[in-house]
């Protein structure tokens, strides 16, 4: 098979995949008797046409950047971490414990402490599947799925039986002390000129962007990243080169779980300011779509996270203002994963044919 030019590989393939997903979504909207054009107008209006919408879009995007980066790092080591959801929930637990049981004089210190707690708990939740993969060959996809369910049960237990304040009915922790409150965009000098009303997007957004840079540096500029990528491409070759498989699997999954856990500072600490049930609300899974869409590159992940932020906020607006249920965004999410992740080969074959056609035309013309 002929190869695609590099620009097509980097930009055109995801674009075509995305277009296909969008087209089918439009068909779905038509099938349930609604107007796709109207839908896109509502989505755009509600998510990117005003500061308030952006405040939500960026808030969601922040979470997706973390989980997308988590999936990306693991992918480069050849590991499919579906456990982002559970790791993010555990990260929430870490944040809650740090915020509730340690005294914090100022939000900056609290942010540092909570980040540490979130990353540690998320990493710990990834550690067991990682260890089982490295030492006992248990397939990490299945173990991380199992750990998502175990995490859900554990969180219910923690919230119902342990952390719920006495006398309260709903399964949630007490509110975090005000010292741990993270500045939202409407509270940050400068930004508050644009974001005039209260929005959930907060300083964590900048941490997410920083993490994207860190992940890029890690993967393409450090020895560890080099080893992670080499191991992901070929385990036997890695062994030849003296790369320790157990070490790489463990470290990669700890980083991945840590990144997924970090998401909790955005939603638990930055937004809810207490730990609720099902805190990750699917963001762990969206990380898979974001990583695939972003071609497992931090830049792509940031862009894909923004897109999914838009989709999430826009989808919520659809639920509010139209008869299209909010679940449309789950459909789009599934389609994006299908086309960018599983049907990659189909899109490539299609494009290669088209390119070959143009090439022969050119030859004939010449």
């Amino acid at each position, binding site marked *: *098979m*002929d190869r695609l030019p590099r620009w097509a590989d980097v930009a055109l393939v995801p674009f075509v995949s995305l277009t296909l997903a969008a087209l089918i979504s439009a068909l779905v909207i038509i099938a349930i008797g609604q107007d796709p054009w109207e839908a896109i107008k509502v989505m755009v209006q509600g998510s990117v046409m005003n500061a308030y919408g952006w405040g939500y879009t960026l808030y969601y995007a922040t979470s997706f950047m973390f989980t997308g980066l988590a999936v990306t790092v693991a992918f480069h080591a050849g590991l499919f971490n579906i456990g982002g959801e559970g790791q993010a929930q555990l990260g929430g637990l870490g944040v809650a414990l740090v915020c509730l049981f340690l005294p914090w004089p100022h939000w900056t210190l609290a942010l540092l402490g909570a980040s540490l707690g979130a990353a540690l708990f998320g990493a710990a939740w990834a550690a067991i599947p990682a260890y089982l993969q490295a030492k006992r060959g248990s397939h990490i996809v299945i173990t991380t799925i199992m750990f998502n369910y175990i995490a859900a049960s554990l969180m219910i237990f923690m919230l119902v039986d342990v952390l719920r304040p006495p006398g309260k009915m709903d399964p949630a922790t007490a509110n975090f002390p005000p010292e741990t409150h993270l500045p939202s965009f409407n509270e940050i000098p400068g930004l508050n000129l644009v974001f005039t009303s209260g929005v959930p997007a907060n300083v964590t957004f900048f941490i997410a962007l920083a993490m994207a840079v860190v992940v890029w*540096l890690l993967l393409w*500029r*450090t*020895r560890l990243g*080099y*080893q992670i*990528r*080499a191991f992901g*491409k*070929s385990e*036997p*070759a890695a*062994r*030849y*080169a*003296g*790369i*320790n498989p157990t070490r790489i699997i463990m470290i990669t999954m700890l980083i991945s779980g840590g990144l997924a856990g970090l998401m909790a500072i955005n939603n638990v600490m930055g937004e809810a300011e207490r730990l609720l049930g099902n805190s990750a609300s699917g963001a762990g899974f969206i990380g898979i779509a974001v990583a695939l869409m972003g071609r497992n590159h931090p830049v792509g992940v940031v862009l894909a996270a923004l897109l999914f932020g838009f989709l999430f906020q826009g989808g919520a607006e659809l639920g509010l203002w139209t008869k299209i249920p909010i679940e449309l965004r789950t459909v789009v999410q599934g389609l994006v994963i299908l086309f960018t992740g599983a049907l990659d080969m189909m899109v490539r074959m299609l494009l290669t044919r088209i390119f070959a056609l143009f090439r022969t035309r050119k030859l004939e013309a010449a």
Partner: protein
Amino acid sequence: MANQSGAEAAYAIELKGISKAFGPVQANKDINIAVPKGTIHGIIGENGAGKSTLMSILYGFYKADAGQIFVNGQLTPIPDSQSAIRAGIGMVFQHFKLVQNFTVLENIILGAEEGQMLNTSLTKARKELERLARDYDLEVDPDALIEDLSVGHQQRVEILKALYRQADILILDEPTGVLTPDEADHLFRILKGLKEQGKTVILITHKLREIMEATDNVSVMRRGTMVATVKTAETSPEQLAELMVGRKVLLEVDKGTARPGEVVLKVEDLRVRDEHKVERLKGISFEIRAGEILGIAGVAGNGQSELLAALGGMQAATGTATLKGAPLPLSGAGSDGQSRRRSGIAHVPEDRHHHGLILDFTAWENVAFGYFNDPRYQKNALFMDNDAIRADTERKMAKFDVRPPIPTLAAKSFSGGNQQKIVVAREMEQNPALLLIGQPTRGVDIGAIEFIHKQIIALRDAGAAILLVSVELDEIMSLSDRIAVMFDGRIMGFRDPEKTDERELGLLMAGVTGKGEAA
């Protein structure tokens, strides 16, 4: 002349004008060949000459781009394996196509079952198997699981599979590559038995000895074309070799006498067990001096790979080893590939695709492969200096004449010879005290072979100790200063290449120690 009108055609197989391309690579170009009935017909050629592709087309595994296939004088299109089987063609692939956790019987009936129910098929197959075993000397336990059988027995199952499907024409692709000399001899007896029963056998190999020993006629392929078909009795190995390569060969390497210095590597009682706890190296002892090449000869699978893996830090072993007098750990801490490289051991692995290179990585990333901790490649404590690696890659590519000399090109985009040059350049340019080099020229074109051989000699003359493993006896004989022959995980003896010949080495490789020497 083919008698196409008569009831009895003279040829079992005739291929006319077969062509096949994989992308830009023309694997077969207008191939014509006729195989007389009831003969053993050899097809010989270098790696990548197109032998296996041609036979895969005949077995319906690939579709030819052009050309016709005649079976017993009849034009027979073979679009898939099912059609090949129906036409009476059976194939024994180089890598066996058996279900490991099935019994022999289950493997034999797979795809050739009688009706929907298994029981009837199994009963019938059991009877048929008994008959075949009697007729062709192909004993094998029908209820044994494949994974419990030796390689030789697994091959018998493959032959039985074909015979059970009433194949009259049997194709064997490099059947002896994985066999011990004993098993190979047994195989050739079986093939002769098949011929006597009227079957036609096509034997694909790159080993001249087998052609001379077992075949009636031989066809020679070179770079996708059919060069000649001759009667085996009327040719010689020298003539065949020349036909295969297209010019006068024997690769006489221009080398001066060795001037061995101090002992670099000393190995005693080296033992390796595989994951099934089977001992693959059964107590190996040898030493290599500076400025000396020790060649390891032997049939593939007699422990050479394990020897390289153990010394290269890829596999744990027991025994003792010293490098320049310092102990070399064989298991646990300090026995990994990184430690080996730090202590001055470089390793060109046998399999560059699975071990030596990351095919998706660029050339420059591959030049740092295994040496990513090298201080020259670091910018500071945190980051690697990718620019420095690229510059180093350019230098190495120029010195080893890698084409195209583009460091940012992916390794998979280079030809086999140039890929190997990248690996060899990376390892040799470390100026190692000891170089482990396995199958240095496998799947490499003649030009690159000569270049790589020269580099090996040059490294020796610069004072490195070199352990050379190759299944190509010519290569061993022309490069080595001393030869050790391995058989069944042991060293059968050491020989001086000046004072030995292929016959003597061949006997040692078969486990026969001629001069009453202790094994």
